């Protein structure tokens, strides 16, 4: 699914050039659940943004499902992203002015799907995430756990090949956090590839593989033997 080779990303401010990622090589297979860990500022989020095609690398190659992504224009990246990728953020990033239903419906609108089809898909995913009874509520009327369930619903409603999760439990208490991690595991077991950035050792145990980043480089990779140990 993902093949990254010699990837570099640097940020230039007025005087200093900061190397955020330095010669990163990473391969993620279809159906794999990968966790990326590391201290603050090690380049985790930068890597996730590049994998999510929200940002372009400075150097190196990134192939997504066989397509070279590095160097694509924003418009082309947008097209590739649509329907293939789902995002889950630490701060949920729901649109405050839209209801639960409308937030989840949004990626389907950008895919220009018919209304009746949209309704069916959204309701199905909401029911699965046990949040259908809140479809008419606005984000600020929900608890943090509920908001993240909506965000996950939105990420999976297009049946993406890959879900990118950036600290998905960072803003949640442990009960809600566990619930979210279980949901991600369930999706993974159904075949969705997941790449998750996390600080939490606890959460990293849900992944098949943990990649440790330090100062922009992958320093260790370890495989969890007991998949789904925490379920």
């Amino acid at each position, binding site marked *: 699914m993902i093949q990254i080779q010699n990837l570099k990303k640097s940020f230039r401010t007025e005087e200093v050039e900061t190397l955020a990622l330095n010669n990163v090589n990473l391969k993620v297979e279809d159906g794999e659940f990968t966790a990326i860990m590391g201290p603050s500022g090690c380049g985790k*989020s930068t890597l996730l943004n590049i994998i999510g095609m*929200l940002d372009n690398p400075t150097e190196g190659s990134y192939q997504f499902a066989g397509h070279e992504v590095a160097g694509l224009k924003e418009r082309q990246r947008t097209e590739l992203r649509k*329907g293939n990728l789902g995002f889950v953020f630490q701060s949920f990033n*729901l649109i405050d002015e839209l209801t639960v239903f409308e937030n989840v419906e*949004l*990626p389907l609108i950008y895919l220009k799907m018919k209304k009746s089809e949209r309704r069916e898909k959204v309701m199905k995913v909401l029911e699965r995430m046990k949040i259908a009874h809140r479809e008419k509520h606005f984000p600020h009327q929900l608890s943090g756990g509920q908001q993240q369930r909506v965000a996950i619903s*939105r990420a999976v409603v297009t049946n993406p090949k890959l879900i990118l999760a950036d600290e998905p439990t960072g803003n949640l208490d442990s009960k809600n956090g566990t619930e979210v991690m279980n949901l991600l595991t369930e999706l993974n077991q159904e075949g969705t590839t997941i790449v998750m950035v996390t600080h939490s050792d606890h959460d990293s145990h849900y992944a098949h593989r943990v990649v440790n980043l330090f100062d922009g480089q992958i320093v260790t990779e370890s495989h969890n033997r007991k998949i789904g140990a925490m379920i």
Partner: protein
Amino acid sequence: MYKNYLKIAWRSLKKQPFFTFLNTFGLAIGIAGGLLISLYIHDELSYDTMFADAERIHRIHADIKFGGDGRKFAVTPAPMAETVQNDFSEVELAMRFRTQGSILLRKTGTEANIKELQTTFVDSTFFKMFGLALLSGDIKTALKSPNTLILTKSAAEKHFNSNDAIGQTLILDNDDSYTVTGVIADFPQNSFLRDHTVFMAMSGYEDSRIVNWGSNNYQTYIKLIPSANIEDIQQPLRGFLGKYVVPGVQQFMPGITEEQFKAAGNYLIYSTMPMTDIHLKSDRVAEISGNNDIQSIYILSFIAIFLLVLACVNFMNLSTAHSLKRAKEVGIRKTLGSNRGELIRQFLIESGLVSFGSLLLAIILAIILLPLFNDLADKDISMPYANPFFWLILVGSGILLGLFSGSYPAFFMSKFIPVKVLKGTGNNSLGGSKVRNGLVIFQFAISVFLIISTLVVYQQLDYIQNKDLGFSKDQVLIVNDAFSLGNQAESFKEEVKKLSYVENATLSSYFPTPSSRSDSTFAPEEGLTDQENAVSMQRWGVDFDYVSTMDFEIIAGREFDRNFKSDSTSIIVNESAVSVMGISPQEAIGKRYTPDMGDENPEYYTIIGVVKDFHFSPFRAEIESLSLHLTDRAYALAVKLESGDFSKALAGIEGIWNKVAPGQPFDYYFMEDSFNDTYQSEQRLGRIFFIFTALSILIACLGLFGLAAFNAEKRTKEIGIRKVLGASVSQISYKLSIDFLKLVGIAILVSLPLGWFAMNKWLEDFSYRIEIGVWVFVLASFLAVVISIITVSYQSIKAAIVNPVKSLRTE
């Protein structure tokens, strides 16, 4: 997709009622102002377009310089109309007006006169020229015979109390009887004939048949054949000088040639102007009705554009400031697959929604304000509800405004980079602040410019109103129609003078405020036929009390005196006249001049006095040469009153009038009012400037208020930290306000030279004008600073007094 755009737009507007209000209200004020001004300009541009074949109708003008000063006349000689019709195959039709001003009318068999203010003789081709139809009467014969007239519908109803006026007889000025042969509809307000109510047959007017190329009294209109080009007759029209005028002048200046006439610095140029241009482009001697100045249309157009641009800028500023709150949404949408085009469309729909709301509010505002605006602009404009073009243009401009003002925020917002905005760290560094600052500078520069303009216009008006005019206009009452008293006029004057509150009184047709004007060319006794010595002067007939009643200052010689029998052939001239003569006031005394150039036995007038120059034309014009002579023919009585209760004085004078002239209307005005009327267009401009300056400042303040609110909100955390570290409320308020004041300071620096330049240009139109003082700029800058401090400080202080614990918690 669009439904989703609309939905989110509506919810986002609803969620921020304060910003939505500022945005909608600011834009609505701009649109309402622009709408009112557009209606005014549309009305001004529509003058005289209602006549059939209006585009083929032109008026012939004469620019004449002979004997001192050059003047532009709207009138030409009596034979002009017939001559152009005969000489030019391009001319389909020609007709003349010979305006008569006010006339007293009464039905035969009655005593009471009713006054009609605007009357004129017209050729019988009047109907054909303007495509007029008669409401009653026979168009083939109406105005053909002498002593016939036609009335407008309202005049007919006034005099005959019925629609059946045809065949009735009217006595004009207690003298001639005329038969009514037709009734026409009243002329619309945007027609040059709007105030004319009585049209008499030219065939009964003796002077119109005399072939005299030396006197200009007739407004001559021509209609071209459809295929003709007006330019083709301009050159031959200039040739009329040699072909017709010079041969005519040779009668009293034998041997004069066109070359000699021109060599002496004189000229006579005939030209034409399209009828539909006259209202805005003609300012000539003897216009049929008061015209406006195209400059005021330009100024108003600028103001309208300023207002709309200001309002749009406001919209852009508030939207981009506010958009930082929408950054997250943009990031999410982009992450979920929205491209930039879709986001631009979304935000444009949102601004379209606001501009549509503003448009509705603006229409309501304009409907409410229209009566006030009509008062302000001296108009009778109504909303053209039934006109589909009006709605089309309105909706079209609403969409354009929405696109224009929404475009920058849309492009600005759609550029947000999701990686940055979703982190929530980039909010303060999203950029656009340079553009916003530029827009605030632009808004305030316009406001300061308008403040300077308003101050200068008012200062010039004040200068006009308080300048030493060289005569006393205060407490002078003019009683019209004294001529109708016949030989009783003098005893009426003497009776009035006996009243205790009357200082003095004088009979004349000529006053320094708008009244009759008459000029003649005078030649000195020595060098009678030498045109270089000729002096063209106003020639006013007055009585013995004129100079003292008007309070003129004699600078040489004396005023008219009943004890000098010879004064019937004396004249008093003004300073300008003696300077044209090239002599000093003292040298002028005793010199003899005659207006009868070319006569075998010219009548000479001896100069017995020189008066200090006084203003009898608007300040736009230089003071012309002028002479006063004694006459017993007078149109009006001017009464100088003592200060006090004018109503008593009025009652006393009216009592005497009713005794000597029973049945005649008592018609009067105060000289000061008439003087002020002369500056109506300046006063109107002053008022309009004032109102629209206030509006533009209001819009700019709304924008600044919104930006200050936004800025305070954005800096909540900074304010909290500063307070924790010990900053006082005043230090924080200062910190928050000073950035905006810097922008206002730059705006002031930009607008001062522009204001100075533009207002000097405007003042150039006045021969007598103020110098723009430094205080104008100081005051304008001071006002802008004070207004912006008040606007910004509310938000700054509000933010500064918040408990820092609360400020820091919001992070």
